[in-house]
């Protein structure tokens, strides 16, 4: 047995918890991921985020090129610059991923989301809801004597703002599509 005196409890903190000195500012990034339209790709992408502890604020996926067999996954995530770089590199090495674009850093982009709002109420509230919907350019897509379903498109912030205003007016349910995004310009 070693005669050495060994300090008890030598571990103050483990390397597992440490991160290098990158900026600590958490940034929001929108990533466009072009993937092979195969079963399991989405599971791999989502599994990557949950397995490695990354955040998903929004995720949308749909086939965008039927002949080319491609789908586009749009992910809004947040993290420090180093984490964002890791996320992109990790996505990039998935075998069925063709391309990862960070729309937040690669020039300016447009983002849209569609949402449906069910608002129920009577009297003043009902009138106020319609008035606000008009200001936000939301359409009424269903109505009863006690309720409306509004359809609204816009940036996630605009939809958040609309939700805040509807809440006291009888907001029952929201369905949001998640963000679709494209870079601005010709290509």
């Amino acid at each position, binding site marked *: 047995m070693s005669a050495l005196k060994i300090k008890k409890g030598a571990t103050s903190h*483990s390397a597992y918890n440490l991160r290098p000195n990158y900026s600590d500012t958490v940034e929001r990034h929108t990533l466009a991921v072009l993937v092979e339209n195969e079963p399991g790709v989405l599971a791999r992408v989502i599994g990557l985020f949950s397995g490695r502890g990354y955040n998903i604020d929004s995720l949308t996926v749909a086939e965008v090129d039927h002949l080319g067999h491609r789908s586009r996954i749009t992910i809004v995530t947040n993290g420090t610059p180093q984490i964002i770089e890791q996320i992109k590199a990790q996505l990039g*090495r998935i*075998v*069925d991923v063709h391309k990862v674009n960070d729309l937040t850093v690669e020039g300016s982009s447009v983002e849209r989301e569609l949402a449906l709002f069910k608002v129920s109420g009577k009297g003043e509230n009902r009138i106020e809801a319609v008035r606000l919907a008009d200001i936000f350019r939301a359409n009424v897509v269903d109505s009863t004597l006690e309720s409306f379903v509004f359809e609204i498109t816009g940036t996630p912030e605009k939809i958040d703002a609309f939700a805040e205003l509807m809440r006291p007016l009888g907001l029952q349910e929201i369905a949001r599509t998640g963000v679709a995004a494209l870079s601005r310009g010709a290509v």
Partner: protein
Amino acid sequence: MTKAMTGAKMVVQALIDQGVEVVFGYPGGAVLPIYDEIFQQNSITHVLVRHEQGAVHAAEGYARSTGKPGVALVTSGPGATNAVTGLTDALLDSIPLIVLTGQVPTFMIGSDAFQEADTVGITRPCTKHNWLIKETDKLAATLHEAFHVATSGRPGPVLIDIPKDVQFATGTYTEAKQVETHYNPQVKGDIDAITELVKAMETAKRPVFYTGGGVINSGPQASQLLRELVAATNFPITSTLMGLGCYPASGDNWLGMLGMHGLYEANMAMHDCDLMINIGARFDDRITGRLDAFSPGSKKAHIDIDASSINKVIHVDIPILGDVAHVLEDLLNVWKSRGRKTNQEGLSNWWDQINDWRAVKCLDFTQEGKIIKPQYALQRLEELTKKHDRYITTEVGQHQMWAAQYLGFEDPNRWMTSGGLGTMGYGFPASIGVQMAHPDALVINVAGEASWLMNMQELGTAMQFNLPVKQFILNNERLGMVRQWQQLLHGERYSSSWSESLPDFVKLAEAFGAKGIQCHDPDTLDDAIMEMITHDGPVLFDCLVEKHENCFPMIPSGKAHNEMLMGDASTDGAISGAGEALV
């Protein structure tokens, strides 16, 4: 040319076309059609293991010792779930494997059928890629693609799940050359980045090469170029556990392994260097220790084929994305064309410093009395086997670290250990895979008694296939590495770390028809090892060693490279003055 055949036949045909010679596997209902095809051909040898975990580790041993992908074949449900540990092991160590699993017929998927498991779901996080095949027509192309994906870029395990009806149905066989793939990772490094590294190398006063398993994975050419580069620049070189053998242990510039149980000189050189050149390693936490104190004064370059390894934990100044062999070739050319410059004066001072560190002789120990020290057992094993055509596998624990410290590796693919996952039970089946690939070589698994018991059933496989693998068990009757941590970090409360009720290993060997040897006396150790080597057949060598020996040097987790704990022999007298900083 198109050929019609059943899915089961396609599997065998594709394996033959891909040059596969050995498949490790275990049959069951969902793979019977494939086994039927295996029965009717002679090109491929099927090794029947005794547990599916053994099949995957054996395939790993085969792959790690040849550089070729290893192949395993198992049934659905429990066969597939038993393969999970091996897949994860291969993923973490970047070992190319093709694992074929049977699946219930397509029309029964999702019905909780007998022996149904969501194999692609379960194995998604532990494979580089996996596929569930639903049409026989796509099977052959997928098999060929699987070999491509497993072996290109950063290698890794892939899995193909094949429902039984797909195996029975007839489809069109696709030749490998007809298969299109979009998976094509970049191998050439960026020449500007390489030139920047060369410039840094020209002026560095205290450079060090920090190499890893990526050099081995890149192929023999990479090790060759690395040796040329080290010889030409006279820079010191260390390596991770995974990279041992990429530079010869007998080489002048070799500092030994680095990391948690690495050598003093290697860790100190990493801590004090001014230029760190990481070649195919990944700044694992066993290597870096405390991150904010990791090599604080150095400029860091990192050559890696996987972009996600670069800047993952350590920020590097010169990232180079590419295959090691390709990048080293360009690096050497650029360095030569710019006049083969290094900072001679700086280097000479650096070597003086390194030689002072070497003089600490951190691996020294004293063998005295009648009890074999594990270090001594390995030193003797090294002496008596190093001239042989030798391959070493290990289990996981203290014995593994001692093997890394006391055995010398002159070439790549000679040292096959479970690094990233640290899988007890890996070494024995891996040795079987190695011996299948190298029938005439001396294959030794350096084991701990506890690890070895985890896959001991494979002794049946070794006997059946006449594989003369040598199981060299350093028996300390302890889960030694656990006991060491409990001693150092948990107030000597040895919670469940005694190996109790151990079998009589000699009788155990004999029960399988193998040879058992027990040795407890340092004076008879050499003869016993010679008896093991010369015996033509599997040997279970029960080497009774000092029970409470600790493995040093050791960087406790959360500590920096210059905060190593040392063994008693070398710290005697070194504790005062400057040496105090080491404890």
